[in-house]
């Protein structure tokens, strides 16, 4: 082929490429505007707010105060660290239980031994579609220490006196409250279950056949094949779960208006942020708390990604 023939299309290609890029950017416009207007600029502004003393009720009194808010949040105001620790403790209880339960359900629903899988899948998923406020209120009733069915059933089955104020006080006992909140969360297990199920279905059946020939039992197959192969899915769920739990707000607010009942246990970080920002309207301080949450989320995410190479298995070393 002649050189000129090669050259000509190249020039035309770049023009075409430019045109293509222009069109592409045009289609990306909604996102780019949204990114600037609702993510990037507000984040910067949020940082600027954190250096100010600002209350929208008295906007004239707004003043630049340097890092005073940060100093207060990190050193003086013990509630910041305490609410953060509570959040982490709750995450430490709820995430393993929730993800474990989701995985367990997925394994059952993936088993060739279960009859009528589609029906169970639908029914296990169904509560996830219920608005969380309704979920919290329904569980609040069923766990009620006097009239709730859970206590009545436990008492009937075990014969131990658990009904009443001396019994299992799911909603008022500081030792139980994180488990109670975790139970609310189990009703939202559907998404995680479906994602795990899809992950399990992606495990090549030859592996199981080979293992069976080698005489591996069910438990060995689970630990040596299934779990390692779906670690990417577990990892994804874990990252998402940490970020979501860090912002946990709804149940403490719906049940106790964010008072932290019982014993301050449910005054999580987001609850405290809401109080400062939208009850007391200390928006400068609120912005500081929000930035602290952002930094915490970033550190946690980076840490999780850092641990990934020790336990997350990517087939063929390839990562998407």
């Amino acid at each position, binding site marked *: 082929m002649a050189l000129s023939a090669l050259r000509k299309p190249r020039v035309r290609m770049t023009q075409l*490429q430019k045109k*293509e*890029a222009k*069109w*592409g950017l*045009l*289609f*990306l416009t*909604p*996102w780019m*505007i*949204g*990114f600037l207007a609702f*993510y990037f600029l*507000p*984040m910067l*502004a*949020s940082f600027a*707010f954190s250096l100010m003393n600002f209350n929208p009720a008295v906007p004239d009194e707004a003043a630049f105060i340097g890092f005073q808010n940060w100093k207060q949040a990190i050193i003086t105001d013990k509630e910041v660290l305490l609410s953060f620790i509570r959040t982490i403790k709750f995450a430490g209880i709820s995430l393993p239980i929730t993800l474990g339960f989701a995985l367990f*359900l997925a394994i*059952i629903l993936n088993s060739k*031994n279960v009859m009528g899988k589609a029906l*169970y*899948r639908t029914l296990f*998923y169904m*509560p996830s*579609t*219920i*608005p*969380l*406020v*309704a979920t919290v*209120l*329904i569980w609040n*009733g*069923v766990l*009620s220490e006097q009239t709730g069915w*859970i206590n*009545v059933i436990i008492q009937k089955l075990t014969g131990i006196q658990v009904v009443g104020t001396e019994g299992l006080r799911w909603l008022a006992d500081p030792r139980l409250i994180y488990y109670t909140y975790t139970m609310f969360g*189990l*009703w939202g297990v559907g998404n995680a279950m*479906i*994602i795990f199920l*899809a*992950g399990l279905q992606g495990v090549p059946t030859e592996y199981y056949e080979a293992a069976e020939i080698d005489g591996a039992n069910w438990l060995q197959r689970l630990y040596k094949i299934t779990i390692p192969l779906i670690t990417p*899915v577990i990892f*994804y769920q874990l*990252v998402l779960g940490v970020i979501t739990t860090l*912002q946990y707000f*709804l149940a403490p*607010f*719906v049940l106790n*208006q964010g008072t932290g009942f019982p014993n301050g246990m449910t005054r999580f970080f987001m609850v405290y942020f809401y109080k400062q*920002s*939208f009850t007391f309207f200390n*928006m400068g301080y609120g912005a500081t*708390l*929000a930035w602290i*949450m952002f930094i915490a*989320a970033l550190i946690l995410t980076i840490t999780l990604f850092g641990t990934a190479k020790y336990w997350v298995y990517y087939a063929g070393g390839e990562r998407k």
Partner: protein
Amino acid sequence: MTGKILTSRKPLTRKIKNRIIAVLVTSLTIAILVVFLIPMIYGIVTSLKTEGQFAKVGAPWWPATEGQYEYEGESYEVFKVPIDGEIKKMALVVKGRGQSQLVDIDNPEAGLIVWDGEWRQLEPIWEFDPQWGNFLEAWNTINFPRLLGNTFMYASITTFGAVLSASLVAYGFARFRIPKKSILFMLMLSTVILPSAVTLIPMYFVFLQFGWVGTWLPLIVPAFFSWGTNVFLIRQFIMSIPRGVDEAAMMDGAGPFRIFFSIIIPQSVPALTAVALFHFFYAWNDFFGPLIYLAGNPEKYPITVGLTAFNRLYAQSFNLIQAAALVTVIVPVIIFFFAQRFFMQGIVITGIEK
């Protein structure tokens, strides 16, 4: 079927063993499912009880009222009465200490029968008596039509905005060569894990300046500027549509918008449906945003915030709370049962491929 051929080659004991395992695992699944759904059953049963039933010792677990019997124009409570060596259903007409007068409801012609014993120790007859009126009462007290209307308006407008904007952006990411595209894409995905609080205060401040606080606008407008997960889901789907079709259309002189609307959109219906469903559910569930932007405007509340306010006022009326909670459940659950397939597919695309 292949399964049958395989198993028929196995020894008989193996077959029996597999059958036993199947029965055990299935029973275990059903048992877990029952426990899992107990709160739902509790909610339904409780929503149909009278408020008085909670306080009565010995009341049954199902919605019931103490049986009544009409005798000579008056209504009397019915008890199980041990009399003449058998237990009869009798209405208590004249209450007395140590001695009462009752009437046998299976044989009222016999007239009043004197019975020796303490009537307070008699067991009442409970009759199944669901209080459907609780739903009506909850419906009216909380002004459900308005809450549902608000929620429906919010959910539909933002769903439209979310699907439209996300599909435009997804098309841009899927089909065009743009410099630094992968960086932009990563940037978009990273917004998914950004805690919403970090942008909230400046946005609240700006919306306050616009005079938008106290209206739905701060909640509706951002939905038209596309969210990361939605774009991701649609992009993955568009990438699986063969390019041949849009290239052919391009040869015929169709511009990108034409291709988008007449080729990409019709082919991406499953992904668009999934995004629409997710967004609709998200909006139906949304609590924090409306709580902040609509504070103090109860006539604009969505169902979630309205239900919370209701719970605060009627915390002691277990039956009404459950009835109100169940009303909010109906719409999403019905949609879910009809649109399951799209749901599950959408979850799988966003969850696995990321």
